[in-house]
């Protein structure tokens, strides 16, 4: 990992390599697309001097990161954009305390919501909390900016936010690393009560210190090489101010336009932007999502134009930037009926979640959902999920519905949450349920991994990020510990048992938890499995089995067929067939 040769890396790999070269002592975070691979790569270096750990959620991750940085260690904390919402509580106050060791917080934003529930623009966090933010636009910059972020963090004693977006995280480019920093990683925590104990008397002084620091950082931004002018500004009819991957699109479609490339978007280099504007005459701001830079540039009295408001939705692209440069609104997507229908994401064949959703649908229940593969239960043909807001929201949403609707509907509401999501944000919801006397039902869909992001370890898996053994914490035990009396565990492949348990739980007056435990199929790939086939002469072609939405089932001439290569042997289709047309194949 100390190669000086040219490397070809994802943006995420480049961040991890830079952190290692910066002498990082600890990395932590919570998995979330598009940030997940940063910490996996860091752990993958196997460097005994680096402690890399998944945290149960982003708030804990940042708090752990702060502790390490208070003790003087260089620390990397990673999360996706919505993870920063979870970590926002420590974040805002840590802007007052600042840090001793460099702390770089990666907020990996997901414009276009490739794999997210919203496309919030986390540049606003930099302004709101008062923290500097860097925006890399390539793998090389992901490396360079991470190295620089650690230096800035220590020079100004502040957390530095690094905001790559999906296209930077998940694109590869050539990276030339520089020599690693020589850091002897031995740390001692030293007491500093006025600085680190944020009671009002101390915090007021620290807020004042933060404001002064932000002025220094603004001067730093105006002088910094992070913000560079590309092309000849003098004599041009128009110049562009751009940041992040939007800069690359501008260079792609308009290589001759002068561009002020903003690498440090908070504090904005307003002086530099004013000078650039004077030189080019007119400035167009090209930025993804909100008009963050544009609003601040205009507020500073610098005349500037922005994109058409239609471009605040979704990510940019070379074609979209071409339209922005031409002053046009976003093009309406043209439906192409001549192309094959899209392949929407579906639950894998044999996924334990499908069995659960088949029963929820059969019982016609209202289902509050959460963040994970099981959110796919909202898509046809299952289409039996009623809410999805954020990590842990399923439980609170169910409680709220239960409290206000008529009893007959209240008894038909269940919450579903995954195992990793339960550890992340479900515990406090369960506490509310027990404390306030809910009679509702919670299904913990325990597939023994963090499946949606590719199978990361969590407190229930018995493994740590580096593969080491850990205590496996059972969500059933946690619920009992939180005061839930009615806790059951079932394999959702046993659909009769699950249905019976569910009916009992809905009928009783206690708050009930059913842990539906079946390992993710991605964990058990290659293991021996049952196989099923359709007896064509028995099949009535009624389509009941197709309505469970398994990709291993397909329509043949006059009957349904099972694609053996895809079948995982869960037997759900055989269960729903009233005619006994689907049978297990003898081994």
């Amino acid at each position, binding site marked *: 990992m100390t190669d000086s040769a*040219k490397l*070809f890396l994802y943006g995420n790999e480049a961040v991890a390599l830079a952190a290692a070269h910066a002498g990082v002592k600890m990395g932590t975070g919570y998995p979330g*697309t*598009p940030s997940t691979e940063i910490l996996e790569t860091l752990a993958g270096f196997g460097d005994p001097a680096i402690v890399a750990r998944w945290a149960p959620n982003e708030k804990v991750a940042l708090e752990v990161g702060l502790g390490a940085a208070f003790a003087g260690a260089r620390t990397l904390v990673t999360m996706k954009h919505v993870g920063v919402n979870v970590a926002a509580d420590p974040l805002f106050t840590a802007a007052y305390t600042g840090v001793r060791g460099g702390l770089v917080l990666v907020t990996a934003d997901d414009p276009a919501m*490739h*794999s997210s529930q919203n496309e919030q623009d986390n540049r606003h966090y930099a302004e709101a909390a008062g923290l500097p933010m860097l925006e890399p636009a*390539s793998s090389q910059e992901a490396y360079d900016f991470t190295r620089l972020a650690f230096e800035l963090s220590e020079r100004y004693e502040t957390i530095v936010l690094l905001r790559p977006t*999906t*296209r*930077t995280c*998940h*694109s*590869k*480019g*050539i990276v030339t690393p520089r020599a690693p920093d020589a850091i002897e990683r031995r740390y001692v925590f030293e007491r500093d009560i006025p600085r680190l104990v944020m009671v009002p008397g101390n915090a007021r002084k620290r807020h004042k210190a933060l404001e002064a620091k932000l002025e220094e950082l603004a001067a730093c931004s105006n002088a910094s090489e992070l913000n560079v002018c590309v092309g000849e500004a003098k004599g041009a009819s128009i110049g562009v101010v751009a940041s992040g*991957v939007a800069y*690359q*699109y501008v*260079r*792609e*479609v308009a*290589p001759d336009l002068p561009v002020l490339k903003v690498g440090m978007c908070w504090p904005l280099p307003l002086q530099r932007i004013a000078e650039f504007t004077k030189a080019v005459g007119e400035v167009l701001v090209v930025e993804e999502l909100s008009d963050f830079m544009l609003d601040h540039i205009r507020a500073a009295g610098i005349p500037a134009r922005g994109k058409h408001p239609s471009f605040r939705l979704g990510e940019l*692209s*070379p*074609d979209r930037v*071409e339209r922005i440069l031409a002053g046009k609104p976003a093009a309406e997507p043209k439906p*192409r009926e001549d*192309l*094959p229908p*899209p*392949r*929407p*994401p*579906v*639950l*894998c064949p044999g996924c334990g979640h499908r069995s659960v959703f088949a029963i929820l649908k059969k019982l016609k229940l209202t289902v509050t959902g959460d963040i994970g*593969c099981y959110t*796919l239960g909202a898509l046809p043909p299952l289409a039996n999920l009623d809410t999805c807001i954020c990590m842990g929201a399923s439980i609170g949403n169910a409680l709220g519905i239960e409290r206000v609707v008529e009893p007959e509907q209240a008894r038909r509401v269940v919450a579903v949450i995954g195992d990793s999501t339960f550890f992340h944000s479900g515990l406090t919801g369960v506490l509310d349920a027990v404390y306030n006397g809910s009679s509702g039902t919670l299904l913990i869909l325990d597939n023994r991994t963090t499946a*949606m*992001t*590719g199978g990361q370890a969590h407190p229930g898996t018995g493994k740590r990020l580096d593969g080491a053994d850990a205590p496996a914490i059972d969500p059933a035990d946690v619920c009992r510990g939180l005061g839930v009396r009615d806790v059951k565990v079932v394999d959702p492949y046993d659909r009769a048992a699950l249905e019976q348990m569910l009916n009992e739980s809905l009928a009783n007056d206690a708050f009930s938890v059913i842990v539906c435990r079946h390992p993710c199929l*991605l964990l058990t790939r290659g293991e021996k499995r049952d196989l099923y086939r359709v007896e064509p002469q028995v099949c009535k072609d009624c389509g009941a089995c197709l309505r469970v939405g398994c*990709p291993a089932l397909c329509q043949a001439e006059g009957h349904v067929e099972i694609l053996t290569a895809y079948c995982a042997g869960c037997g759900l289709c055989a269960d729903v067939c009233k005619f006994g047309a689907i049978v297990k194949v003898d081994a």
Partner: protein
Amino acid sequence: MSDTVNVLIVGVGGQGVLRTSQVLADVLVGAGHDVKQSEVHGMSQRGGSVVSQVRFGPQVHSPLAPEGAAHYVIALDEAEGRRAAPQLHTESGTLIDVPPKLLEQLADPRGRNMAALGRLSRHLGIPSQAWHEAIRHRMPARSIEANIAAFGAGALFDD
């Protein structure tokens, strides 16, 4: 920019779209090009479409190619190939698939992706040694020889 060459590799989860991109990118980096490769992952294990872009030239800015600007579309799946067809450059675009006659020549149908790279290699003028080296570097040890053979079958294949 006009001197950037755009290659789209399309298929479905499990066909090795990303590994194919990796081999191609290795070869291009080794030949001295600036290279960017881009894809969206996260959902690909759940049977979705997988699209990867490899762009190369003297200096590549955007990780994404402009629409309708693909010089080559490598289709590992027939339906995905049709879906990506509008991305082909109208004048200089070439669709590279693996026709049944070529697939028959492969010892293992899983060599489809390397056979497709073999077909692409005829357009790029990079010595086969470099391709073999990248395959050795990126493919699982047990399948290296089969993959090199599949690459060779593709490189020699005439419609």
